[in-house]
């Protein structure tokens, strides 16, 4: 069962571009990336698209489909009506290189700004001991495939280019939370989260959670707990006093 699907794809480069209309064959069981590949094979051999696994695990084919950030390989064509125009555009938050390919180096820069796991000074490699219950909370965050859809949809940088310098975005705040929840991490993540990674910019509107293809509860399980930890350290005098008096490690 195939039909001619109507596609509107953004074509251009860093200098500018436009949406162009195409009619492409769509077959049963296909996803948007299949159709983009057919378009590339039959009509637009010069169209740039980044892809790799076609299984929702590499995070390469991120784009915006009818305005919503999605993985093209995980967006089924049967979710659209046959006469519906499917618009495919590159991720808006990042600069376009060409067609559907964007320059996501912003994310790698932010990744480098998060200090790596820092074990306690008195422990050597091989001496780390921890229970499953201590690490399972942050294991959810390890499912991240770094598709950067959460970064793309976050309005803090999507609509305000000027915030990119001081805001790391949900993906890397989640990384900070993951490390802060690690039972053996000894670095001060809480001050860094607020002051260097811009956690205070987040107004928990949960768009990062909505677009995550791995269904990680970024806001509820990483960002809000991290906000509460920052409150412990920066804004809650009772917790501060309690820690001073009792000196009890969490």
């Amino acid at each position, binding site marked *: 069962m195939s039909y001619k699907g109507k596609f509107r794809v953004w074509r251009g480069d860093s200098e500018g571009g436009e949406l162009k209309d195409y009619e492409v064959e769509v077959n049963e069981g296909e996803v948007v990336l299949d159709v983009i590949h057919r378009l590339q094979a039959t009509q637009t051999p010069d169209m740039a698209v980044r892809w790799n696994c076609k299984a929702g695990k590499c995070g390469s084919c991120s784009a915006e489909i009818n305005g919503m950030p999605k993985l093209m390989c995980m967006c089924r064509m049967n979710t659209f009506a046959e006469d519906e125009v499917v618009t495919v555009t590159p991720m808006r938050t990042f600069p376009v290189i060409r067609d559907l390919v964007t320059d996501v180096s912003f994310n790698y820069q932010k990744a480098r700004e998060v200090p790596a796991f820092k074990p306690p000074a008195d422990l050597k490699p091989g001496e780390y001991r921890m229970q499953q219950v201590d690490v399972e909370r942050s294991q959810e965050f390890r499912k991240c495939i770094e598709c950067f859809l959460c970064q793309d949809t976050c309005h803090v940088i999507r609509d305000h280019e000027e915030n990119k310098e001081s805001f790391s975005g949900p993906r890397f705040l989640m990384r900070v939370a993951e490390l802060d929840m690690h*039972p053996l991490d000894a670095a001060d993540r809480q001050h860094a989260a607020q002051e260097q990674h811009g956690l205070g*910019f987040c107004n928990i509107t*949960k768009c990062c959670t909505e677009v995550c293809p791995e269904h990680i509860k970024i806001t509820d399980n990483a960002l809000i707990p991290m906000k509460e930890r920052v409150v*412990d350290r920066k804004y809650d005098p009772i917790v501060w006093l309690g820690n001073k008096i009792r000196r009890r490690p969490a």
Partner: protein
Amino acid sequence: MRIGVILGFFIVYATIRIFMNKWYWVDAYHYLTPLYSPCVTSSCVEGSSHLGTWFGNFPRFLPFSLITFVVLAGFRGTCYYYRKAGYRSLFFAPAACAVPEPHKNYTGERKFPLIALNLHRYFFYGALVFGVLNIYDGVQAFHGDGGGFGIGLGTVIIWINLVMLWLYTLSCHACRHIVGGRLKNFSKHPMRYRYWTFVSKLNPKHGTFAMTSLFTVILTDFYIMAVSAGWFSDLRIIN
């Protein structure tokens, strides 16, 4: 849009109700609306001051339920769910995911006044105290006409509201953090891990509890107002 209308309706309704300063107590069945609990001023209707009177007569323009209003409005106003709902529906920051927001600048929750939203945990502590008082009010509502035990439709409504309020309060993100979320080593605190696990099961439904309890509070208050004002009488099930 729909959420914005609901929030707007509740804000208007609650504001009107707290300034009415009447129709909050049904003496025959000991129904006290949650918006006026506890009623602790000398201006309160006789019988409604379960905890005694802490203050003298309030002037007409000052709500008797000022403390209740500050704590409960503060708890909901700083709640992570309502923040999300408010930012989206009232401030369009953003109105929906991937929809451009209209504001030229955005500083988030880093500066005054929005930095005060970090007070959420203190309002949570307050909401816990008020939750206990609401249980007391709920027990009082098993009061029959003329004394003794009794159950009416008002009692049922009050208890449904009570359950929803407690589900909303216990599923709160601050509660989740306080009971155990702040720990790094759950294995060293098995009891707190169990509390955290329990709250973590409720937490994903926090938004549902938030909106449902908003409706049940309005319903409870309206029912008690209507019975108190004599618009209709309470449907009695027992006595």
